[in-house]
Structures are given as structure tokens and as C-alpha cells.
């Protein structure tokens, strides 16, 4: 009898729960606020420090010590229009403050010149329209970046469309950056005609970058999703940096010279897999090739371990390998007859390891019980390059909703 009663109670609860799944009334589905509401605010702070002994400012030898403190804030607003399309507006502002021992050596006799430190400002705005009925989204963005010797303006558009079952999505993005490089030569290469003092206006030259990105994402099953990415990028203009020295094998010094165009093809695949109930494996592979002769492979692997549903620890590892560009030679190795030359070790052959961990907490009741303070994330990484270069970075992300 007791069993029969329990079965009946069970059946009643199942019946009750099935009613709980009934479709809400049409009004409650379609009502969406048309007011512009603050959706999300993110603060991201990072401290980066590097050291090495292959500075391109001093021709491939000398200190690469650099510290950078970056702060970014982004504010996201959203509203629905009469046709129930969601409009998202994102405003972002970033400030980097950095000090660089190598830049200080533009003047080899200086010990703390104006070029030893700088501030970079980089604001951006974007507008995204998402149409649930058509399963499409369209976005535009504009950005700027300003530092003492470099200015950049960026414009971009994006479009994506999902399949009927929302399991596939194709995307396209086009981006252009129109930059100006200040032509600051190493002090010993300045003649009376191109000589400027530290705070004078320097002549500039343009550097433009254009890229198109294609993406295709696919849900494979309830635990696995993939993303395929292809970029075609083209740069044109002044692609070298005038204050990068190159010492030839006859001990003469020149300003770096590189071709005025560069075509790049990176291709990548992301795969995210939910293993069991507590582990998420994120992986990424990229193959890259350009017409300067640089080929690279990078593999990222990150495992997010959920200590609770809202707290996770994510150890990660990244391996990167690249070949040198055809115009690279180390200190005092270039021939005076070479047309293009650089001793920038960022374009040399090397492999690198990046290892670290992240910690993320996002309780449903908010951090410290504050429902608006929704997430805090900390991430540390150590980077080691085979050219005897190393760096450390620590980042913090605070999210408010």
C-alpha cells in the first residue's frame, strides 16, 4: 500500500512538473524592454614584465627589459527595437603605461630619455544588431590607438548567421587599420635635415592593415563544439621600424629595412569538450604562413576544473614555434649589399612555452553577496622563449552586471 501511495505521489509530481513546462503566454515571450539598459561592465588590469638580451633597437644585442601596466574598461548597453532585434553598444577604453630599457637606447648615450617610457591610449566603440527571427547578427566597430611614435585608426564590419537548429554558425568579418609611424631614427643616423629633438614633431609614414576573417562553428554533440577560423591579412606601407638598428658584417649601422607589403594566412581550429561534469577541455591549434617566409604552429591547451559549479581553476599550456623571416640575420651578420635587413628577434627562428593558471569565481548571488558584482577572474602566465627571453603576466578581470 505504501509503495502504491509513493508511486501515485511520484506520478502526480511528474504530471505537475510537466505542466510547469507549458509554453508561456505569447505576451511574456515577446515582451522585451525597449529601454537602453546597462548590461555589463568589465574591468581588466594586467601587469606584464619581460627581459631578454636581443633588443632590436641596439641591433639584436642589449637589454629587452620592459614593464607594461594595462587597464581596460568596457561598458555594454543593450536595447530591443520595434522588430525585437537586440542592439548592443559597447564602449571600451584602454590605457597602457610602459617603460622600456631598449627604447631608451634610440640615443645610445641617454640613460633616461623621453623614449624610455610612454603611455598608449586605445578607445573603441562597437554596435551589434542581433535578429533572433532571422538568426543573423550584424556589427560595426571603430577603434583608435595613440602613443608617442604611433597612431592607429581601425574600422570593421561583421556578419554571422546561425542554422535553423542553432547548431551551426557561419561568420565573416572585415577589418582595416590605418596607421601612421613616426620616423624616429637612431640618434647617430640623424643628419641635419632629419634631426629632431625629443619633443619635436617627426615626419610620419603610413602603415595600413586589411584583414578578412571567416569562421564556421559547429556543435558536434552535447559535450563537444568546434570552431574553424581562417584569416586573410594584408599589410602595406612602412612595415619596418626606423629606430631598429642593423649592424652589417662590415660594422656599419643602418636603420631596419623591410618590404612594403606583407600577406598573412593564419588558419585555426578550436575544440571545446566537457569531460564528465567538472572538467572543460579547451584546445586551439593555429597554422600561420606569410610571404616573408615565416611559418608557425601554435597549440593551446587549457583545462577548466570546476571545484563547484561557480568556482573553477584553469591550468593552461601553450606551445609556439616559428621559422625566421628571410630578411633576418643576427648582429653583424647582414651583408651591406642586402636589400632588406632586420635583427629583430621577434622575427627570428624560435620556439616558446607559455604556462600558467587562472582562477574564476562567479557565484549566482554575486561576489561578497553583491548581485551586481558577478565575476572575478585572475590569471597568471610565464613565457619562456628559446632565444633566452622570458616574461611574466598577471591579469585581473572584474565583471559587473
Amino acid at each position, binding site marked *: 500500500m505504501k509503495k502504491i501511495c509513493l508511486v501515485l505521489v511520484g506520478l502526480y509530481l511528474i504530471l505537475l512538473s510537466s505542466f510547469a513546462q507549458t509554453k508561456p503566454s505569447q505576451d511574456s515571450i515577446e515582451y522585451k524592454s525597449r529601454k537602453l539598459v546597462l548590461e555589463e561592465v*568589465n574591468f581588466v588590469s594586467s601587469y606584464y614584465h619581460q627581459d631578454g638580451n636581443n633588443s632590436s633597437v641596439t641591433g639584436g644585442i642589449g637589454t629587452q627589459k620592459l614593464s607594461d601596466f594595462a587597464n581596460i574598461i568596457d561598458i555594454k548597453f543593450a536595447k530591443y527595437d520595434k522588430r525585437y532585434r537586440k542592439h548592443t553598444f559597447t564602449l571600451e577604453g584602454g590605457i597602457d603605461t610602459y617603460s622600456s630599457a631598449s627604447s631608451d637606447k634610440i640615443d645610445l648615450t641617454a640613460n633616461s630619455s623621453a623614449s624610455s617610457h610612454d603611455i598608449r591610449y586605445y578607445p573603441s566603440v562597437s554596435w551589434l544588431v542581433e535578429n533572433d527571427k532571422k538568426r543573423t547578427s550584424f556589427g560595426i566597430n571603430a577603434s583608435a590607438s595613440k602613443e608617442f611614435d604611433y597612431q592607429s585608426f581601425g574600422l570593421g564590419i561583421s556578419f554571422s548567421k546561425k542554422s535553423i*537548429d542553432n547548431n551551426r554558425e557561419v561568420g565573416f568579418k572585415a577589418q582595416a587599420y590605418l596607421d601612421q609611424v613616426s620616423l624616429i631614427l637612431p640618434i647617430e643616423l640623424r643628419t641635419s635635415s632629419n634631426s629632431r629633438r625629443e619633443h619635436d614633431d617627426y615626419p610620419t609614414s603610413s602603415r595600413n592593415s586589411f584583414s578578412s*576573417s571567416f569562421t564556421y562553428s559547429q556543435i558536434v554533440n552535447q559535450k563537444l563544439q568546434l570552431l574553424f577560423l581562417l*584569416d586573410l*591579412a594584408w599589410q602595406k606601407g612602412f612595415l619596418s621600424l626606423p629606430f631598429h638598428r642593423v649592424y652589417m658584417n662590415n660594422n656599419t649601422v643602418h636603420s631596419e629595412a623591410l618590404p612594403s607589403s606583407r600577406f598573412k594566412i593564419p588558419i585555426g581550429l578550436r575544440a571545446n569538450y566537457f569531460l564528465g561534469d567538472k572538467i572543460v577541455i579547451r584546445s586551439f591549434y593555429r597554422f600561420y604562413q606569410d*610571404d616573408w617566409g615565416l611559418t608557425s604552429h601554435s597549440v593551446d591547451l587549457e583545462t577548466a576544473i570546476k571545484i563547484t559549479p561557480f568556482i573553477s581553476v584553469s591550468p593552461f599550456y601553450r606551445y609556439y614555434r*616559428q621559422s625566421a623571416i628571410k630578411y633576418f640575420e643576427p648582429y653583424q651578420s647582414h651583408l651591406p649589399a642586402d636589400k632588406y635587413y632586420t635583427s629583430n628577434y621577434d622575427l627570428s627562428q624560435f620556439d616558446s612555452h607559455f604556462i600558467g593558471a587562472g582562477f574564476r569565481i562567479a557565484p549566482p548571488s554575486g561576489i561578497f553577496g553583491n548581485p551586481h558584482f558577478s565575476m572575478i577572474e585572475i590569471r597568471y602566465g610565464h613565457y619562456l622563449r628559446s632565444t633566452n627571453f622570458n616574461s611574466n603576466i598577471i591579469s585581473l578581470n572584474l565583471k559587473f552586471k
Partner: protein
Amino acid sequence: MVFKNLIYSLAAFLIMLFCFSSCTTVKAYQKGKLNDAEMVLGSRKIQKSEMSFQSYREGASGVNGGKTGGGCGCN
């Protein structure tokens, strides 16, 4: 050479499209794990500075959400 690689890349893209077409359909109510914050396909905001320094300190860039131009990274 670059053009040849472009052809290979596009061929790989088409093969993947073909492979993906055999995937099972996952209903909205079955996407609990796929919608988890850790399953986002793309870089997270906290990785922004990491991607910047990598694009400056390495010759390759692109497809990881990082920039393919703009900003100097001169040092």
C-alpha cells in the same frame, strides 16, 4: 607559395564543412553543458593583454581574436 597555401587552407575548410555536416542535432534543452561559461568558443577578456604581447613578441598573428594590425609594439 602563399597562393598554394591559400588553396590548401580553403580545401581543408571545405573538407571540414563536409565532416561537420554529419554531426548530430542538439536541441536547445540539451545544451546545458555547451552553454557553460567555460565552453565559450573564443578568447576571454582576461586574455586580451596576453594576446597583445604574443602578437608583438611573435611573428605570427591572427585567428585567435587578437589583432592583425594596429598598435605598434615597437619595443
